């Protein structure tokens, strides 16, 4: 693979704190290697800002291998940038060419208020999990794991839903700021397993109620969430969520 260097113009959202109105600032970066990750390009910019005596850009990031779900940049209008099924930290600069202008914003959603610059508060997701995204089993004397055979296809489907990293790209990509893909992935993960059966009814209604309380919008089936999801979480999960919800509301038991 041929490597090359590039000069770029960056327009980055700067906002001091939640109260500040915020706005774009323009920066130039030079000699960026195509081998760098997008966040390493930001490291270069931040080093430059520090050397100029300015405050570096604040952004969430941690594992830098696409699994922790911390990174959350809206790049040229796309959550996590141009590559399919890729987090910001795994996006590499060979996606760009010399002279490009890149606009970087935080996730935009009422339920994800900006903390500073590109960093937002996603604790609404934690509270949705608190409302029922678990199986109520205390630590201790669980039965032998192989006493509960589970159909491989079901287990695989459950795993595919459980692969959600809770980054919030689905919300940021949705014109309604809906959290349905996130929520449905958790409902599907647990509803597909026999262990999730006892709380199946109450889980889905409690989690949906919490989602509504947090100020996320409704789902209008545009499927932008799936298109931008870095882990390829399927909108089939939303269909499953809807049927789980209807089943729960109309069956009336275990509420």
């Amino acid at each position, binding site marked *: *693979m041929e490597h090359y260097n590039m000069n770029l113009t960056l327009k980055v959202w700067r906002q001091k*704190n939640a109260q500040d109105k915020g706005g774009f600032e323009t920066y130039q970066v030079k000699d960026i*290697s195509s*081998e*760098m*990750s997008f966040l*390493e390009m930001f490291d*270069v910019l931040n*080093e430059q*800002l520090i*050397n100029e*005596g*300015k*405050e*570096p850009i*604040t952004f969430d*990031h*941690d*594992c*830098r*291998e*696409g*699994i*922790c*779900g*911390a990174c959350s940049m809206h790049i040229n209008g796309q959550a996590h940038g141009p*590559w399919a099924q*890729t987090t910001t930290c*795994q*996006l590499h600069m*060979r996606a760009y060419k010399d002279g490009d202008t890149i606009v970087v914003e935080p996730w935009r959603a009422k339920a994800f208020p900006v903390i*500073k610059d590109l960093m937002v*508060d*996603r*604790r609404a997701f*934690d509270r949705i*999990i*608190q409302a029922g*995204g*678990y*199986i109520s*089993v*205390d*630590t*201790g004397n*669980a*039965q*032998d*794991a*192989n006493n*509960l*055979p*589970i159909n491989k296809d079901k*287990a*695989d489907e459950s*795993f595919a839903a*459980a692969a959600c990293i*809770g980054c919030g790209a689905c919300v940021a990509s949705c014109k309604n700021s809906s959290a349905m893909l996130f929520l449905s992935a958790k409902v599907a993960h647990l509803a597909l*397993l026999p*262990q999730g059966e006892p709380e199946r009814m109450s889980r889905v209604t409690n989690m949906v109620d919490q989602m509504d309380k947090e100020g996320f919008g409704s789902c209008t089936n545009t499927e932008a969430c799936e298109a931008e999801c870095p882990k390829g979480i399927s909108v089939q999960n939303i269909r499953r969520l809807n049927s789980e919800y209807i089943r729960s509301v109309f069956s009336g038991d275990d509420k």
Partner: protein
Amino acid sequence: MPLNSKIPAGQMAQKWTDYKDHCKLVNPANKRNIEVIIVGTGLAGASAAASLGEMGYKVKAFCFQDSARRAHSIAAQGGINAAKNYQNDGDSTFRLFYDTIKGGDYRAREANVHRLAEVSANIIDQCVAQGVPFAREYGGLLSNRSFGGTQVQRTFYAAGQTGQQLLIGAYQALERQIALGNVTMYDRHEMLDIVKIDGKARGIIARDLVSGKLERHFGHAVLLASGGYGNVFYLSTNAMGSNVTAAWKAHKKGAYFGNPCYTQIHPTCIPVSGDHQSKLTLMSESLRNDGRIWVPKKQNDTRKAKDIPEDERDYYLERRYPAFGNLVPRDVASRAAKERCDAGYGVGTSKQAVFLDFAAAIERYGRIECNKQGDHNPALDKAITLGKEVVKEKYGNLFDMYEKITGENPYEMPMRIYPAVHYTMGGIWVDYELMTTVPGLYALGEANFSDHGANRLGASALMQGLADGYFVIPYTIGNYLADDIRTKAIPTDHPEFVKAEQEVADRINKLMSIQGTESVESMHKRLGKIMWEKCGMARNAKGLQEAITEIQALRKEFWSNVRIPGSADGMNTELDKANRVADFIELGELMCKDALNREESCGGHFREESQTDEGEAKRDDEKFMYVSAWEYKDISNWELHKEALDYEIMHPTQRSYK
């Protein structure tokens, strides 16, 4: 203070059972009045917080990330070991115990490791009950694979995302306790000191990273589950935020540091591509189930991998270690890769890489698939196409990650890999109950030193983190807290809280007032370079002495020339980093001091002065069969305490995987 490891008397296989039968208990009414602080929400911290919350303790959990779910356990790829013997291949609690002690090069404490092996099976049961979607066979039962340093299949996995699935399980259990009000969660908080009252750990000082405010929190006991310190090397497979700060503050308040020099260099990571590199990415050890490692037989061979014929390839692990082949333990595989590269056989532009090749596995799996279809003499193309599908199902996410980072397709050409810092076996010294040398202060998971000796086996970190959190601390903490039921919550205007907060504030003010010329990142890189070159895969006395001098100089420079923009009143990620790097610098010196003291090679610690004729690590059991536990006295001043390792069951021998 003499070290007391508090290992229970009795037969090895009975110690933990006897302990549980006789340890003190706290009744439910008293538990409700006892507060426990837990720092870190990875596998150890989240599982401990959930379990103690379920038991009725009032728990406060802290993490520096924006959510408990992001702790770096999430990135563990390959799997978790457990002595289930589901494969009927001769596995047992004893064999897991044996492999772990041997894998650790006879530098771990037998009683702890035996307990770990005993509870390993319960972990799998617990996780499945929580809904962790482990890989399964078509019959619906759990699937297993092999990891290094073992000859059985005892590793449970969820594709290449086992850590993620286990952590989400623990996180969900934790969130449930938060919803019930048993646990209070403090995210985006960093612990910056331990508060001791009358010699006991009684709380912490934490900084709210969003508001910048310092907070005082009381606890009857404090648990550190803050992970390892691999980022002392700057480049490692750890997350950017992984740090030693909580552990280091505890160390400076009296907790001895155990075996700081024991570092795990993982053999299969994506090589460094340039100076811009901010972190290194692991390619799971599980890949060595199917990948074959090789270099050209000719030095400085610049041909492409596919142009090098079979008989001109050196599968050096299979050649040197026929019994374990590509699945030798990590320390052995890493040194062997370094040896080949140093001798001029490395590949790629940097020549600091070896091949990890899946061509044979793809063909082998493809032929099996063809057989399943009744085609017993398939065309090679067909076998390869089907084989790629099988490999994709097993390792797809890892292959995708490799391609995103390098721009090369590993289904078509071998991966290039090189060793990188991955894990630290050393950590806060703890006794059998996981208590540090400070009463009421505990260390769990990677933050402690306890179970892996001088080298950790693959898929054992997840096991240990969850063992400590789910199955050990719920018992051992009661044994301490039972004597503390009459202690009322201590108000945080107690002079010790005031003093500790003032010290933290003074240090932050000092850092902010330096206003020097060099960024934190730049100084961190310089520390990492010293550590990697002189306290990395191979170490010698001269290099270590030089490193100590260089680190001391770097520390002075840091405190006079670091540049932190902005203010301390609010979110300031540069200040957060500076707090951590300042501690890494002090730790780096101790690591070199420990490596210098240990004039033997063992596991991941390789002293060039101590090797066999074949270049293998050579232990010196006469002189060094002990745990080094360092007591902090003052800057650059530590006292060494030794915990002798007495092997009742195992007979330490020269480790051989040949």
